[in-house]
């Protein structure tokens, strides 16, 4: 290539790039808002209090399980997933899922929906371990599965992989990696439930763990591509965010407290997360032993939280309610034991008919599912 042809090459590239940019710019940009189903209160049907519990994973499953997730499909069935294997981070860990029409009828035999080998082949990238699945059935009936994969190092070297199913979890697409970080795409993990936007986009709460720890949220388009990322807080230790929409733009985020001296659950107000309008993190009155929390909006506009309300250990799992998201009242102990028992990683959703569904890790050996309704919550107050 002669020296005189270099300017020509540059000019040619510049012309093509400018034309492509102009064309892309003429396409209308999507204005994002939360879908009404995410924040509108629906009065629950007048029924009797309901509270049912069942183990999702039958006896004889994998020795160790963790990080359960649950979603309700359009046909009303519940779909749960978790990771299981010899131990957390072991090479034999797979993502399992199970279905249930309702808790009284039990859960189907778990099937593998993501494995290390399949993910390695799909991504054409060495995968050392996987974990933290998240299931979400969107308004169009597509079921999304997000999970973390690690190629090098520990969990802080994670990146997020996505698969989806258009037949209620019977078959799944090939896995794709979400690119969320400029440094070798490491250190983006997922724990909280995605939130649906009006345009069909998803907001996926994620967190960063390398050097400093903080919560973020990814905007994901219908093709599963990350189109934006917003830092929810710069507060070191505020991880595993749980996003709760309050209206079309306004939301609140709740965090596991993984640093600092205040062993309390953290939260902050997000006037408009889409425009990165974020308020500073505040400490709530609920203790937090460096453990995940799950929060959902109640029918009356208040909040319901599943948490480990201790300063050390995850041997107690409780439900708490609040009207403002800041001051909480414990209403019920789901589990109350002594260390080293562990009841952790709650994942809470509101299903149709107004029922709440909670799934959590039970002594690291089983996944447990609870279903209860607003009347039952009201009775605990």
């Amino acid at each position, binding site marked *: *290539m002669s020296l005189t042809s270099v300017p020509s090459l*540059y000019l040619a*590239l510049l012309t093509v*790039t400018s034309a492509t940019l102009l064309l892309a710019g003429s396409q209308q940009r999507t204005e994002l808002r939360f879908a009404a189903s995410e924040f509108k209160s629906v009065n629950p049907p007048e029924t009797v209090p309901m509270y049912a519990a069942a183990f999702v994973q039958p006896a004889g499953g994998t020795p160790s399980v963790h990080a359960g997730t649950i979603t309700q499909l359009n046909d009303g069935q519940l779909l749960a997933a978790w990771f299981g294997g010899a131990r957390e981070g072991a090479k034999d860990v797979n993502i399992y899922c199970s279905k249930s029409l309702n808790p009284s009828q039990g859960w189907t035999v778990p099937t593998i929906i993501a494995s290390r080998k399949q993910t*390695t082949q*799909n991504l*054409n990238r060495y995968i050392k371990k996987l974990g933290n699945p998240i299931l979400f059935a969107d308004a169009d009936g597509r079921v999304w599965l997000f999970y973390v994969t690690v190629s090098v190092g520990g969990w802080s070297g994670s990146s997020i992989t996505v698969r989806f199913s258009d037949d209620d979890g019977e078959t799944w697409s090939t896995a794709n990696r979400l*690119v969320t970080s400029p440094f070798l795409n490491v250190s983006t993990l997922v724990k909280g439930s995605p939130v649906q936007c009006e345009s069909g986009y998803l907001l996926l709460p994620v967190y960063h763990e390398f050097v400093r720890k903080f919560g973020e949220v990814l905007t994901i388009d219908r093709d599963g591509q990350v189109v934006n990322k917003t830092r929810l807080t710069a507060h070191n230790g505020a991880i595993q965010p749980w996003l709760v929409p309050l209206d079309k733009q306004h939301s609140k985020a709740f965090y596991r407290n993984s640093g600092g001296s205040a062993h309390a659950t953290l939260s902050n107000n997000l006037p408009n997360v889409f425009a990165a309008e974020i308020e500073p993190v505040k400490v709530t009155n609920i203790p937090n032993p460096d453990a995940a929390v799950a929060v959902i909006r109640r029918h009356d506009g208040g909040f319901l939280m599943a948490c480990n309300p201790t300063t050390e250990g995850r041997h107690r799992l409780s439900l708490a309610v609040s009207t403002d998201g800041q001051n909480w009242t414990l209403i019920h102990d789901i589990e109350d034991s002594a260390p080293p028992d562990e009841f952790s990683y709650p994942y809470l959703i509101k299903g149709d008919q107004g029922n709440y569904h909670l799934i959590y890790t039970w002594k690291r050996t089983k996944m447990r599912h609870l279903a209860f309704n607003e009347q039952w919550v009201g009775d605990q107050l």
Partner: protein
Amino acid sequence: MSIRLWIWSHLSFIILVAAVLCSLFPGRRSVVTRMLCCFAIVGLAVLPIQHLDVSGLVLGHIGVLSASTMVLLLQSLLSQLGQTKRRGEAEDRMSGIVWFLIGSVIYTSTFGIVEQDFYALGYQTQMSWIVLAVSGIAALLRHWLLAICLVTAVLALQWRLCESANLWDCMIDPWLFFASTFQLLHWAIRGRPFHETTVTHTQPIV
């Protein structure tokens, strides 16, 4: 993995290996030798190993290369093969400063060392126009390679050739940042760019 990303990741590996081999074994080669080497590298890239191929195994550990790194490696490769002129000292220095500054801002921001998240700006279309403007300034200053790197990064983003939808991922990767940092440090200590003091094989080896 889409076919587009498959091509990008394998092309990254092929250019990387070819550039490294040319640096390690400089000298003029016959067309036949070059073709054989090229086939060997392509074969290595797709060689199956542990449920994936060699390029996937390597890139899984070092990450996918940015468009800028690909352009620089390609220029280095063509230069080694005698197809283009070597980069000038001033151009090297300017490029090094630009990559170092971009990397410093993006990586410190990503790790949360600074409160603002500059990486998120890479999702905004306006950033592409700004980078094109910077490439124009670089071109006016006759830093052609830097200008081509910048404009190629924007093009790779717009054509979705990269895995990421963020401009910074197409523009810089940690290896380009580390190389620039090392080169600038060496230049600051010795007073001239790194390759001027280490590359001694200027005469073709027949």
